[in-house]
C-alpha cells in the first residue's frame, strides 16, 4: 500500500512534508543507457516549493536509477502530501540557463550519436517508403533531432515520455531498438506493437516511452496523469511531453496546462515549434507570435523559447528544467524553435513552404552544426566518422531484421482488446 490510510485519512496529521521517499523499483528490463549520466536533479518532494530559484534546488544523489513503474505495476513508496486543489505551485521563478551550457564530453558524444542515429534511421525509413515497404503513413522528424536528443539525454530512465505521431526520434532517444520501430513502420511481426499501432502510435512501456499519440492535443492530458501518479507515488519520476506548435490551439492543450499547473505536476511540456501545422503556417492561425511561450502566462508559467536546433542548448535547458520540475516546483512549458526538413507526412514534398525559409533552416541543420561545434572544441572527427559508420551498420542490420520478419499473425486482429487477451464482448 503506497498510500497508507493513516497518512491520507482525515485523521492523519497534515503538513508532514519531505517524508523520506523509498527508492522506487526500476522497471523491468531497463538498464541505464550510455550517455545518461547528466545531472540528477533533486527528487526531494517539495509540495509547497513555489517561487524557488533554480539555484536553490538541492541535488540528491543515490536514486540515479529511480525508474518508476511501467504500466500497470503497483509501486511501493511513501506518498508525499499532494497539495489540494489550488495549493499548486506553478513553476514561476525558473528561467532557462544562459548560454549553451557545458555538458561533459561524454554527454556530448552521446548527443551526437543520438542525433546521427535518428537522422540515419529516418532517412532509411523514407527510402523504405519510396520502396513501398513502409505502407502506412509516417511523419519524419528530420531536422528536429536536437530536441529529442537533448531531452532524451537529460532524462532519467524512469522518466516518462509522451510524444506525437512524429515520434520516431523520441522513441530512439529512450533506447527503443531501431529494428522494433522500423518493423512497426513496415507492419512486420517484429514491430514494437506487431503492426497493430503503426508509425503514429509507437509505444514501449519497457522504456517508459508511454506512447505516441495521433489525435492532436490528447496526450498532454494523459501525460498529466503519469505525472500525477508519479507525484502520488512519490517516485521522483518526471514526465516529458512533446507536441507541435499547431497543438497549442486545441482545447486539450489549455485544459492540460491549467491542470498541470494547479496540481503542480512534475511534467515538462515541450512544444516543438516547426512553424507549420500540416500545410498551414502556425503564424496564420494563432493569435500570438509564440504559440506556446506567449500562452505560458495563462498558466502561471514563465515564457520560455529556446533554440531547438542546438543540441547543447536543448540539453542544458532540459537538464535544468527536469531538475526544477523534479523538485516539486510544478510544471514547465518550453517552446523549442525548429523546422522539419521534409513534408508533413510521407508523400508530402512540403513544397508549400517558401524557398528561403527552408534554406535558412537547412543552414541551421542541428546535426552538421553540432558536429562542427564538437570538432571545433576538440573532438576527433575520425571518432565521429566511426560513430556514423556504426550507425549505418546498425540501421542496415535493423532493416535486415525487418525484412526477415513476416507479416503479423492475423490472429492479432482480435487480440488484446481486453485484458484477457481477446476481443470477447459477450457471454
Amino acid at each position: 500500500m503506497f498510500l497508507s490510510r493513516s497518512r491520507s485519512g482525515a485523521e492523519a496529521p497534515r503538513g508532514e512534508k519531505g517524508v523520506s521517499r523509498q527508492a522506487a523499483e526500476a522497471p523491468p528490463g531497463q538498464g541505464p543507457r550510455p550517455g545518461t549520466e547528466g545531472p540528477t536533479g533533486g527528487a526531494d518532494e517539495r509540495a509547497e516549493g513555489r517561487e524557488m530559484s533554480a539555484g536553490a534546488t538541492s541535488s540528491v544523489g543515490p536514486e540515479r536509477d529511480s525508474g518508476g513503474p511501467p504500466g500497470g505495476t503497483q509501486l511501493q513508496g511513501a506518498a508525499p502530501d499532494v497539495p489540494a486543489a489550488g495549493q499548486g505551485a506553478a513553476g514561476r521563478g525558473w528561467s532557462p540557463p544562459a548560454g549553451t551550457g557545458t555538458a561533459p564530453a561524454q554527454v556530448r558524444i552521446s548527443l551526437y550519436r543520438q542525433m546521427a542515429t535518428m537522422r540515419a534511421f529516418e532517412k532509411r525509413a523514407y527510402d523504405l517508403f519510396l520502396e513501398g515497404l513502409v505502407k502506412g503513413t509516417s511523419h519524419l522528424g528530420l531536422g528536429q533531432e536536437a530536441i529529442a536528443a537533448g531531452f532524451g539525454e537529460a532524462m532519467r530512465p524512469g522518466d516518462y515520455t509522451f510524444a506525437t505521431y512524429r515520434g520516431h526520434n523520441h522513441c530512439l532517444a529512450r533506447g527503443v531498438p531501431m529494428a522494433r520501430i522500423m518493423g512497426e513502420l513496415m507492419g512486420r511481426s517484429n514491430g514494437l506493437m506487431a503492426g497493430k499501432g503503426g508509425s503514429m502510435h509507437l509505444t514501449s512501456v519497457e522504456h517508459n516511452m508511454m506512447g505516441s499519440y495521433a489525435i492532436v492535443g490528447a496526450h498532454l492530458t494523459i501525460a498529466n496523469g503519469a505525472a500525477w501518479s508519479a507525484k502520488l507515488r512519490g517516485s521522483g519520476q518526471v514526465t516529458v511531453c512533446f507536441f507541435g506548435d499547431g497543438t497549442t490551439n486545441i482545447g486539450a492543450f489549455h485544459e492540460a496546462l491549467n491542470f498541470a499547473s494547479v496540481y503542480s505536476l512534475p511534467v515538462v511540456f515541450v512544444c516543438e515549434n516547426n512553424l507549420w501545422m500540416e500545410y498551414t503556417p502556425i503564424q496564420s492561425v494563432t493569435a500570438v507570435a509564440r504559440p506556446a511561450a506567449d500562452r505560458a502566462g495563462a498558466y502561471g508559467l514563465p515564457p520560455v523559447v529556446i533554440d531547438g536546433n542546438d543540441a547543447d542548448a536543448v540539453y542544458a535547458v532540459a537538464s535544468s528544467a527536469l531538475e526544477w520540475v523534479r523538485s516539486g516546483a510544478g510544471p514547465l512549458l518550453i517552446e523549442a524553435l525548429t523546422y522539419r526538413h521534409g513534408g508533413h507526412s510521407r508523400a508530402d514534398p512540403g513544397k508549400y513552404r517558401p524557398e528561403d525559409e527552408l534554406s535558412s533552416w537547412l543552414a541551421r541543420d542541428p546535426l552538421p552544426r553540432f558536429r562542427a561545434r564538437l570538432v571545433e572544441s576538440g573532438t576527433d572527427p575520425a571518432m565521429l566518422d566511426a560513430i556514423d559508420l556504426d550507425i549505418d551498420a546498425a540501421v542496415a542490420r535493423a532493416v535486415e531484421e525487418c525484412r526477415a520478419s513476416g507479416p503479423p499473425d492475423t490472429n492479432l486482429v482480435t487480440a488484446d482488446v481486453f485484458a484477457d487477451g481477446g476481443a470477447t464482448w459477450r457471454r
Partner: protein
Amino acid sequence: MAEMTYRDAVAAAIAQEMAHDPSVVLIGEDVGAAGGVFKATVGLLEKFGPNRVVDTPISEQAILGAAMGAAMTGLRPVAEVMFSDFFAVCWDIVANEIAKARYMTNGQVSLPLVIRTANGGGVRFGAQHSQSVESWAMSIPGLKVVAPSTPRDVIGLFAAAVRDPDPVIFFEQKSLYPTKGEVEEGELVDELGRASTRRQGTDVTVVALAAMVPRALDAAEALAQEGVSAEVIDLRSLVPLDVTTIAGSVARTGHLVTVEENPRLCGWGAEVASIVAEECLFDLDGPIVRVTTPHAPLPAADALEDAAMPSVARIVEGVRRSLA
C-alpha cells in the same frame, strides 16, 4: 441487510474500493468538498483526504486524460463525468485513447480505471443533461459498460468495475439516485457480464436496463393482470453482454421486447434485437419490439418529458405488439 439509497450506495461503493486498494483515487468536478453535485460522493474527502479525492477545474478532457495516464502508471483512478451528456466534450479521451490503448500497443498498456457518470432523464434537466448514452460507450471496442438498477448492484458492480483490469464506464442512472433497496452487509463484489432475471415469465422476454428495470417490472405486473406472463431481464452490463441469458429466455418465451431510455436509432436495444434475429430467429414467434424514446432530444417540461420516456403503458403496448 440495510436499506440504502442508490445515491448512498455509490458513496459506499467508492469507499469500499478506496479502503480495499490504496491505489484507488477519485477525481472529478465537485466530488470532494461538495460531496458531488448529486451527493453521491459525500464523506469521501473526509475519509480519504485530498490526495485521493481530487476536486478539479471544469476540464473533462484533462480529468479523463489524467485518469488514463495515472492508470497506465500504477493507479486505479475513478473519474467522474458529472452528467453523461458531457462525454461529448471528452469523447476523444474515452473513445480514441482509453478504449484503444491496450490494442494499439499490442497489450503493453493496461488501463484499470472507471469512469462514473450520471446518466439518463426523468428529472427535467432538458436535452443537454438527460441523455442516456450507454450505447455510445457500448459501440466503442475496448470499453466495458455497466449500468446498475439497484443500490445493491451499485456496490457489487462498482467493485467489479474497479477491480477489472479494463476501462469500465459506469452509468449511474440519475432518476434512480433517490430510490431505495436492501444491501447486504460486508464487502460486495460482483462479476461483470451477468444479467439478472428479475421476474420469471413464460410468454415474453422483456430486456431492460437501469431505470427501465423497475418500469419493466411494473409493466410485467400489469400484464400479469391480463394473463400475460413476462420475464424481465436486467442486463446490468452491456459489455460484456449476457447473450446466454437473453437467448435462453427467448428460446422459452418466443418473444422479445427491449426497453431503453435511448432515442430510437442504434441503441443497445437494436444490438440485442439483431443478435436475437441472427442467432435465435427460429425461436421467435413474433416481431421483436423495441420500446425507446422517440428519435428526438428530451424535452424539459415535465409533461413533455413524461410523454417521451418509455412508460409502463408503452411497455405493455410493446409487449402486446410482440405477441400479436
